[in-house]
């Protein structure tokens, strides 16, 4: 099954040009293209497919909940479907193998017999057999009150999912409506559609969608798959159902082939990192299989109800556009003349600047030039000028960073570190696109390994793959001298969190899994953000070390008492000997000491005691001094968040002057 896809891709590629030569031009639908090149969208193998499906759906759900400023509540359920169950789902009779040698897994036939005998262990072996399906059940539910909750999967959807649009939203690749410029989560905008293509390719089972919008008294239910060749949805069932319990949100059920065993840790990492960067969301992750001991249920609780603002759509910055984009903007604009076009379709071009720009373009341009009549040469001239002219940097107002508060809470919530520091940089610009770098550095914590643990986020989604080339990894490993901040790079448990948001993240590679290290603007912003965190941590660490020194001073001093007294006493003993044998004369006070040494009135123990007393005295004095200097310090207070209860109103409040007693019914 796994090997089938690549060969198919190769065939497709080699055939197309050949055919084009000898016969008529053949068109390929977008859905076909992505079906053949699914690795571009992160569907490389069954394991990665499962992972990508989960993340696309989760990110869509977050986007849609945030679009209507609702706190996200997301449930993810992955259910393992063994072969026999799958067969019954598609109505295929589970046939016994007759010709055993026909099968690729002939060697395991014996094992298979055993498996039949022991049903409990069945899935493990069957998982290796080709026909294995997995079910991702996705709830994006906003159950909290007021009945205005709505969440769906579709990235550009803030309005909800109108009943009639559902088929096209899922069943047609590249059918988005968004043409503006905006910070978005999704990587390709394929999201659920790619999952649908993959389910079609691997299991052939349709996708099921239930959705309910605000103001709808019904529930939209839709079962569909996709006609890959024609790139149109193929609807099995599309109906309005009763929505008795006034549920709002969306639910998607898709059956795909996957591999839980190999991508388990990736998926869990993804969920954990997602919980770090979105502490205002509640995630419930479940893995259900026939073997109860393998089941996983993790709840990532909500820690705050402060959401970052919704990213605003912005216009293009003149220095970031290319010729094609200018043409597209011209085609779409409602403005008539060049003057208005420049002023309204770009940021940072005011009237005076627009006039100057037009003057600079040459004699054939005038403010009144009809924008739709511009020739190709003229457009190239405009593009050249945009590249060369100086414009103000775009502002970061259109971006929606996670915010220091949320990043900090997320880190505390998921890692429970001993210390944490966060920093949010100001907006900077790379190739006309604004970006903001935020960083957090934590020391210590639960489930953190020694050394550097790097968490990367781009537009508030975690990046898990291709860590090696990433700007964050390289900066943290090579350009931060942790020692300067009293952090031990190999011994301490260091968490480094860097979140970059931008209208266009300059990803490297096809998988969009990392940001290159060659962009000096981003590299230096990342470095300075991490350094700012380290500076904050350093003062904390130094204080801690001082406190520890206070505690351990007595022990550290006392440790050396025996060596010191021995050294002094050894000399005294020799001196006493020569004094006794009258080899040398000493002054009265000194002679007195030596006599006492000879008479064992002053012994090693005497010196030891005296030194110990002294150390205790010094320790007491210094502790007193330390206490008066530092005073009784209060740790900075931190807001705690108490999750609000479902206020359905079925309780009584008993009011007293000092407290309220609430009784739930």
């Amino acid at each position: 099954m796994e090997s089938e896809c690549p060969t198919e891709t190769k065939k497709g590629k080699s055939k197309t040009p050949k055919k084009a030569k000898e016969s008529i031009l053949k068109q390929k639908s977008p859905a076909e293209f992505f079906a053949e090149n699914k690795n571009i969208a992160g569907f490389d193998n069954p394991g990665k497919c499962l992972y990508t499906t989960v993340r696309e759906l989760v990110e869509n759900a977050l986007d849609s909940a945030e679009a209507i400023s609702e706190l996200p509540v997301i449930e993810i359920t992955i259910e393992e479907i063994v072969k026999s169950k799958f067969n019954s789902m598609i109505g295929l009779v589970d046939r016994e193998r007759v010709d055993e040698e026909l099968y690729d897994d002939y060697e395991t036939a014996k094992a298979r017999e055993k498996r039949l005998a022991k049903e409990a262990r069945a899935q493990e072996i069957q998982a290796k057999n080709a026909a294995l399906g997995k079910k991702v059940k996705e709830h994006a539910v906003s159950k909290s009150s007021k009945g205005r909750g709505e969440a769906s999967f579709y990235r550009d959807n803030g309005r909800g999912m109108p009943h009639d649009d559902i088929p096209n939203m899922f069943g047609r690749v590249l059918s988005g409506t968004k043409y503006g410029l905006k910070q978005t989560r999704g990587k390709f905008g394929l999201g659920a559609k790619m999952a649908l293509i993959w389910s079609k390719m691997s299991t052939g089972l349709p996708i099921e969608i239930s959705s309910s919008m605000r103001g709808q008294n019904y529930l939209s239910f839709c079962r569909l798959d996709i006609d890959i060749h024609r790139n149109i949805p193929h609807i099995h069932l599309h109906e309005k159902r009763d929505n008795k319990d006034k549920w709002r949100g969306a639910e998607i059920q898709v059956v795909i082939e996957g591999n839980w065993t190999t991508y388990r840790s990736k998926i869990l990492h993804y969920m954990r990192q997602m919980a770090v960067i979105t502490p205002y969301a509640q995630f419930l992750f479940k893995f259900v299989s026939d073997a109860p001991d393998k089941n996983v249920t993790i709840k990532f609780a909500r820690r705050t109800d402060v959401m970052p603002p919704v990213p605003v759509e912005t216009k293009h910055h003149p220095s970031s556009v290319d010729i094609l984009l200018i043409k597209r903007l011209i085609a779409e604009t409602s403005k008539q003349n060049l003057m208005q076009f420049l002023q309204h379709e770009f940021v940072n071009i005011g009237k005076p600047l627009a006039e100057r720009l037009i003057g600079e373009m040459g004699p054939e341009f005038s403010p009144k030039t009809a924008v739709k009549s511009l020739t190709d040469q003229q457009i190239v001239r405009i593009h050249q000028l945009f590249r060369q002219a100086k414009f103000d940097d775009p502002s970061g107002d259109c971006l929606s960073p996670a915010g220091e508060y949320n990043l900090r809470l997320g880190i505390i919530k998921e890692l429970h570190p001993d210390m944490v520091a966060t920093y949010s940089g100001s907006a900077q610009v790379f190739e006309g696109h604004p970006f903001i770098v935020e960083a957090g550095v934590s020391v210590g914590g639960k489930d953190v390994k020694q050394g550097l643990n790097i968490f990367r986020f781009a537009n508030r989604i975690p990046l898990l793959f291709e860590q090696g080339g990433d700007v964050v990894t390289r900066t943290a490993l090579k350009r931060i001298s942790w020692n300067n901040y009293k952090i031990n790079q190999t011994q301490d448990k260091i968490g480094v969190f860097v979140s970059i948001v931008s209208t266009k993240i300059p990803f490297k590679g096809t998988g969009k899994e990392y940001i290159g290290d060659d962009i000096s603007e981003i590299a230096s912003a990342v470095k300075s953000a991490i350094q700012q965190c380290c500076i904050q941590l350093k003062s904390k660490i130094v204080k801690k070390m001082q406190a520890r020194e206070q505690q351990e001073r007595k022990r550290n001093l006392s440790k050396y008492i025996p060596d010191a007294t021995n050294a002094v006493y050894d000399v005294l003993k020799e001196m006493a000997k020569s004094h006794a044998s009258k080899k040398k004369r000493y002054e009265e006070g000194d002679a007195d000491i030596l006599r006492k040494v000879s008479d064992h009135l002053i012994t090693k123990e005497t010196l030891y005691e005296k030194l110990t007393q002294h150390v205790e005295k010094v320790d007491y004095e210094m502790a007193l001094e330390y206490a008066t200097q530092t005073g009784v310090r209060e740790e900075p207070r931190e807001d705690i968040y108490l999750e609000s209860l479902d206020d359905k109103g079925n309780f009584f409040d008993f009011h007293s002057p000092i407290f309220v007693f609430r009784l739930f019914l």
Partner: protein
Amino acid sequence: MADKKRRRADSDSDSASQPFKNLLKSDAQILKILKSVTSSSSSSTSKPLTLADLALSATCREVSDLSLSSVQSTIEALVLQLTHQILSGQGFSFTVPSRSSSNQLYVPELDRIVLKDKSTVRPFSHISSVRKTTITAKILSLVHQLCLKNIHVTKRDLFYTDVKLFQDQVQSDAVLDDVSCILGCTRSSLNVIAAEKGVVVGRLIFSDNGDMIDCTKMGMGGKAIPPNIDRVGDMQSDALFILLVEKDAAYIRLAEDRFYNRFPCIIVTAKGQPDVATRLFLKKMKMELKLPVLALVDSDPYGLKILSVYGCGSKNMSYDSANLTTPDIKWLGIRPSDLDKYKIPEQCRLPMTEQDIKTGKDLLEEDFVKKNPGWVEELNLMVKTKQKAEIQALSSFGFQYLSEVYLPLKLQQQDWL
């Protein structure tokens, strides 16, 4: 083209493969030149200046050789003082002369680095100094034992008496220097010696602990310089100069070629940074034999640094610079200007690293370099060309070029700074 060159080289016999050989006069003539130099230099030597002569003894600190018994009684007085402090319940502390670089002073009149009078208190009852204080007490008691038994031990021996306390030898060595400063005596007076490092070969006869040593009959390797200088005496020599060599390789070349028989001289090396014994030995030779000292070091900042340690002393042991430094060492080679003068080929020159250039520039700021305009000029040239070369670069003209052409020519031209 290459053929032509070779033919011309052949016709010039071996002067092309060993350039400048034709400039060499006969050995007898060179010897005559050398003799005139030696006699003039030895007659001009006067009694060396001391700190007292310059009225600096109040602000600068210097140690002197103390007899074993006076070292012992100084330690005992100190220990009694400590005991008083402990018994009175005040803990104890040492007052240690600071050996940091801010406490160093270059005195041009003396042409060496001396220690100023700043001291630091090292109390037992402070977390940052408890360790060093304990080690100091331990070293004091060990040296006291050495005084009682009248034996010598090495620094390594000392370290191994309590590895757990000292942790590594650097720490016990550093405290040993501190103890010298506290007691006001040289390190040799403490009866602690370093392992043998330096070697000497050539026209020198001296007694080592009663045995007469003839350094012309010590084979190729020469005689190891004895670590305790107080047992060395009765130096005799018919040498015309002392040749100080930075590196073992050049030393072996000269020893094997019996360079000292062609031009009567004494050849010394400490194989890199000089140890105390070699410095003391060189000083003793210079004082007793009154010979000029010529240095052959690499043409890089470190070569000059090593030269300066022989000449002006190291910062680490500036408290004893009076005994350790040999005044008036001449820089014979290889000097940066020699690279072009002797046409050392490009492939034998190395580019200086960032660190090298920095060290070179730092050296230019040092007073002991500034006092010699010739050195400043050479060093400026080195920093400007950013090239360095080892003594071995001369081997590109043949392994024996050093002993057969380069050195004789240098001597003939009296080309030293």
